């Protein structure tokens, strides 16, 4: 359909035109960003603390002012007017430019931090130096590229979080959820680790809400050594890390679905839900994309499991008299856990997985075969032909940096805000597995009320074709659903509800919808 404009105004027509306040707010925000860019080009600001404050305040207030100017004068309700007309949110010029700029930032951040001003064995320069005063205030140490990133990340979640709350101010679920991600980012990801570093410099940097396999490095040798060397606190942290994935996570996911993590706690989810909200509709909804998703994300799970096992294996010893956990006991342990999970799924949950069970079996046997391979074909520090270290580095580069950072966030304006969460995150895959098979969470479809309009599918950041279920009267039980609640919010007919209920009646394959002849419904459902 043509949406061509008949006049030449660059700012366009309503609903995409900016009002005066929005323009001023953009100016304010951009000037804050401008200070950072000037610092990047080594403009030496005299009073760094002051200029950093000015910059961050300008960026934050720019965003908040912009949101206020966007929503304050409107009635509460869904605010999607013009989403597909605006250049930034419909693959237009601004979308591509911001995608390229963000991607560029991530490439520099991960691979060329020296361009941000990181100096080895010397004082920081450039934009990193601008952040030194804040870093020293918190941890006592000079800033690193990661501190700069962490600060900007937190500012983004807070400022865009306020925007999101404004936008969905009619929706209590969205408001509470957003306050939650804002809190967890500020406290757990940003402040606590820095303060802990100040209190006890020997403790490894630990963001407690980052759980293996998302923090794939958690069980590497240097961290384990640091945990153990730090005494009781360190040991407690290590045990917490193990409990997180094996005990806490399954319990919470059983009760609430994986949303407790992905859209209430996680930092990646936090950024996606706040700064990335304007891009949620860009996720690919095709069946093809779903097929790609399942292969890619589960391959990452296999990869991270093998990598972590290999890394731990490589630093364990062979002599059980020195330490109870040896190379072989460890491998047997891993194999037993995997076998137990696999057996449980195959015995009790086979029908729910259907065709996917085969893929699960393939994944399982690849891992088991590899584990056996470790045992029989590994020499000193070698896993098959690779060094464990090579495997780890490859993972860190491909998944940790390129996938989660460069593609995952850099390409928000191109592929949507949850590319990483949907295609790459092994944590999301494991939680999704739990959610699909063993959770009280579902999105209930309200009888026959669906009109197939497509708002739910369009605004699903995870690319789930929600409508495909809703129009058949089926509840949505999908492993990739992060429970953001937007499908329910944008539904004009009150068809969808996220809820935790009994396992019985959670999956309801209904072919003929409520409202029709009761006998016909029985008849068709029999087939």
């Amino acid at each position: 359909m043509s949406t061509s404009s008949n006049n030449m105004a660059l700012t366009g027509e309503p609903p995409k035109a900016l009002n005066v306040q929005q323009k001023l707010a953009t100016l304010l925000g951009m000037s804050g960003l401008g200070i950072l860019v000037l610092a990047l080009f080594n403009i030496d600001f005299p009073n760094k603390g002051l200029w950093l404050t000015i910059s961050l305040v300008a960026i934050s207030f720019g965003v908040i002012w912009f949101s206020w100017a966007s929503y304050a004068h409107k009635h509460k309700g869904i605010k999607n007017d013009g989403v597909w007309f605006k250049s930034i949110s419909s693959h237009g010029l601004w979308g591509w430019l911001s995608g390229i700029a963000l991607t560029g930032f991530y490439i520099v951040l991960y691979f060329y931090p020296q361009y941000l001003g990181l100096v080895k064995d010397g004082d920081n320069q450039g934009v990193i130096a601008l952040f030194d005063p804040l870093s020293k205030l918190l941890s006592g140490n000079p800033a690193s590229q990661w501190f700069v990133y962490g600060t900007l990340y937190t500012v983004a979640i807070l400022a865009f979080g306020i925007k999101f709350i404004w936008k969905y101010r009619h929706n209590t679920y969205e408001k509470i959820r957003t306050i939650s991600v804002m809190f967890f980012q500020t406290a757990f990801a940003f402040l606590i680790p820095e303060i802990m570093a100040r209190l006890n410099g020997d403790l490894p940097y630990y963001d407690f809400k980052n759980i293996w396999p998302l923090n794939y490095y958690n069980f590497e040798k240097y961290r384990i050594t640091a945990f153990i060397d730090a005494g009781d606190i360190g040991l407690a942290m290590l045990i917490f890390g193990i409990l997180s994935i094996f005990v806490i996570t399954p319990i919470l996911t059983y009760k609430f679905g994986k949303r407790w993590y992905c859209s209430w706690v996680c930092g990646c989810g936090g950024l996606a839900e706040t700064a990335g909200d304007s891009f949620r509709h860009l996720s690919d909804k095709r069946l093809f994309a779903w097929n790609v998703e399942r292969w890619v994300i589960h391959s990452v799970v296999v990869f991270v499991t093998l990598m972590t096992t290999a890394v731990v294996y490589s630093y364990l010893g062979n002599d059980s008299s020195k330490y109870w956990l040896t190379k072989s006991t460890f491998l047997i342990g891993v194999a037993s856990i995997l076998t137990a999970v696999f057996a449980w799924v195959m015995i009790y949950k086979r029908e729910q997985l259907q065709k996917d069970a085969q893929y699960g079996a393939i994944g399982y046997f690849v891992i088991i075969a590899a584990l056996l391979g470790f045992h029989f074909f590994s020499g000193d520090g070698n896993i098959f032909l690779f060094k464990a270290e090579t495997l780890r580095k490859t993972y860190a580069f491909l998944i940790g940096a390129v996938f989660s950072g460069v593609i995952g966030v850099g390409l928000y304006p191109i592929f949507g805000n949850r590319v990483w969460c949907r295609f790459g995150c092994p944590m999301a895959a494991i939680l999704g597995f739990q959610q699909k098979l063993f959770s009280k969470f579902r999105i209930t479809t309200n009888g026959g009320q669906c009109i197939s309009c497509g708002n739910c599918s369009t605004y699903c950041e995870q690319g789930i074709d929600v409508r495909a279920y809703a129009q058949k009267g089926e509840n949505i039980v999908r492993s990739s659903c992060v429970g953001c609640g937007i499908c329910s919010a944008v539904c004009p007919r009150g068809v969808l509800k996220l809820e935790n209920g009994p396992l019985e009646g959670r999956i309801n394959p209904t072919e003929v919808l409520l409202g029709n002849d009761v006998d016909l419904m029985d008849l068709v459902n029999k087939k």
Partner: protein
Amino acid sequence: MQQKLRHNVQQLIDMEHIVIIGNGIAGITAARHIRKLSDKKITIVSNETDFFFSRTALMYVYMGHMKFEHIQPYENWFWKKNRIDLVKGYVTNVDHTNKNLIFTEGEKIGYDKLIIATGSKPNKFGWPGQDLKGVQGLYSKQDLDLLEKNAPNNKVCKRAVIVGGGLIGIEMAEMLRSRNIPVTFLVRETSFWNGVLPDGESQMLNEHILEHHIDLRLETNLKEILSDENGHAKAVITDTGDTIECNVVGLTPGVSPNIDFLKESGIELGRGVKVNRYLETNIKDIYAIGDCAEQHESIGNRRPIEAVWYTGRMMGEALAQTICGNRMQYNPGHWFNSAKFLDIEYQTYGWVFSSQGKKKYEAHFHWRHPEEKICVTIAYQKDDRKFLGINTFGIRLRHEIFDRWLTEERSIDYVMEHLKDANFDPEFFADYENDIISKYNSDFATDITPRKKSWKRILNL
């Protein structure tokens, strides 16, 4: 031998060619279910679009919430994969003696069974100027394209006048307001949609419409549309004597069956295509479903013609059974419907009539939130307090629960007591059951305490 014969007959039935005119929800549902039940050859003819789309979602395309491709519920490969042939063309007549459809250029397509699912067309009541440029309804994809041309922004369209206070009228007003186009809304009734809604609800919507800066003019009819020198609408004159300058006139006084092409066909027509409870027309092997079908006799409180999404879908499901050898009546369950008026969601289950349509045996309980635009009306039978239906604005309710309560013929007291089971609002939303029930108690001098939500009851476990 006999077995072979039976086999051959079966093969013939399998190869039967089912042709469906119209690719809306009724025709598409029929096609999908026929495919599920059989291997018959299926062809769908449409002159509107290549693929099925959700008509009720057209508004969101104009408002920029979605692109047109998003309101198509199935990906384009779906049809070929399911062996449903799509033909784009306009059927000018049906030759039922030779079982042929005749197209504009004289081409023909043969059928074994024909399903007419051609939907509706916007009503026009012979107003002077109703065919001027800039005057349009909002029903088809073509109407959407036309609106994009007529009202791309508030420079080209400085004001729009909408005539007809129904669901499409208010949708069209919302669409135009999303582009900051001033809208005047002419409504014949004394209050918006009060032919359908009880007064309290209708009044609340009047307020909400004004809140959205829509110039709502009640009890006002269109008299004439004035033309400029290029044959384009430039103003309307109302029966209250006002002249309102405008560039676009939206005509939304309802729809009627789109069946003009059948006038010479010999198929019995009333306002729509006349069908019996099996959705069969007077001519063998020709059926009609959806908006264009007219029941000989009303089913319950339903109208003989129901231009509603859900009805189209249910008829499609029922007819697919008949076509595939399991002859079955169209036997709809309890009435339900929903809509969204600007920011306010509306759901209804069972029957709640307006003050004009109210039955002798029917009484209402009404609750409205003191500040928010939220309200509920419950209809019940005066003598035995049987629950008849509920209208809800700004609160979502569970379809399944009300469907069950209607079947079980529960009393309004029972509904009140278990109202928390029926709440379908998102988690953490404020709930209003306690307020509603305390108003109920004070209205009827009852002493009902609401029971806690029970999953056991909700899921019938």
